[in-house]
């Protein structure tokens, strides 16, 4: 149901600093909006993001309602070894998505 994407550069050399881009499909409802009849729409956002590289956490982020819908995060990682990069998004109403990609360091 939930969709998430992680993007890495096509070719990675050992010791290179690469950019990891992570995108999750989510409305990020702020909790500040109302319907036309004035009923407030409850907050429903992704609150936490973590990225681990072969099991060790390298980057994390705490998100607030001021992050745009379908939160996009780009950050750097030092490519030290081949393995997997795993990203995890968690949020309101029990939202939880985990996505992994293989990283091949030449």
């Amino acid at each position, binding site marked *: 149901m939930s969709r998430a994407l992680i993007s890495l550069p096509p070719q990675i050399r050992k010791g290179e600093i690469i950019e990891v881009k992570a995108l999750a499909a989510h409305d990020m409802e702020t909790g*500040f*909006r109302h319907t036309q009849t004035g009923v407030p729409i409850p907050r429903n956002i992704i609150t936490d993001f973590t990225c681990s590289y072969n099991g*060790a956490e390298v980057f994390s*982020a705490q998100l607030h*309602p*001021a992050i*745009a819908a379908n939160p996009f*995060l780009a950050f750097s990682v030092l490519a030290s070894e081949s393995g997997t990069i795993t990203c995890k998004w968690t949020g309101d109403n029990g939202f939880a998505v985990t996505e992994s990609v293989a990283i091949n360091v030449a």
Partner: protein
Amino acid sequence: MNLNRKKYRTASRRTFLTAAGVLLAAAGVPAALAQSASSPARSAPPPQSVLAARVAAIRRVTGGAAVNKGRVKLELPELVDNGNSVSLSVRVDSPMSASDYVKAIHVITEKNPQPDVVTFRLSPRCGRALVSTRMRLADTQTVLAICEMSDGTFWSGSADAVVTLAACLEEI
């Protein structure tokens, strides 16, 4: 029939006037008048409650420690067409070595309903302190990035953005 049409016209004019009033208020006409005395590119200063929330957010991040200016470069588009999605990037001048690295980057707004935007937590394995995301902006304002270094010092950088279509106003 005739009566009905007249009724419809009156209602439509009223709807139009209400809508126009809402639009004018949304465009910040009173705010625009108030600002003309100060700098022309900036809108009215935020109300005290919003300022207090921002000060509280900064204190929550720093724990009351002094914040130095510099080392942090926050990039935002100068003119934002749509405040619902604004690309933002933060670069911090740091070697990102095991002993000297950026622990966290906090982004705080001046006039959004809630000052906090995002907190990035980095580690030496990031290699360089460069992060980007997309944020929402409710008004023309200054966005502040506060960076926490591994040695416990805080550094900050800011950027201004002029917003034409604000986030948070639409109804669904």
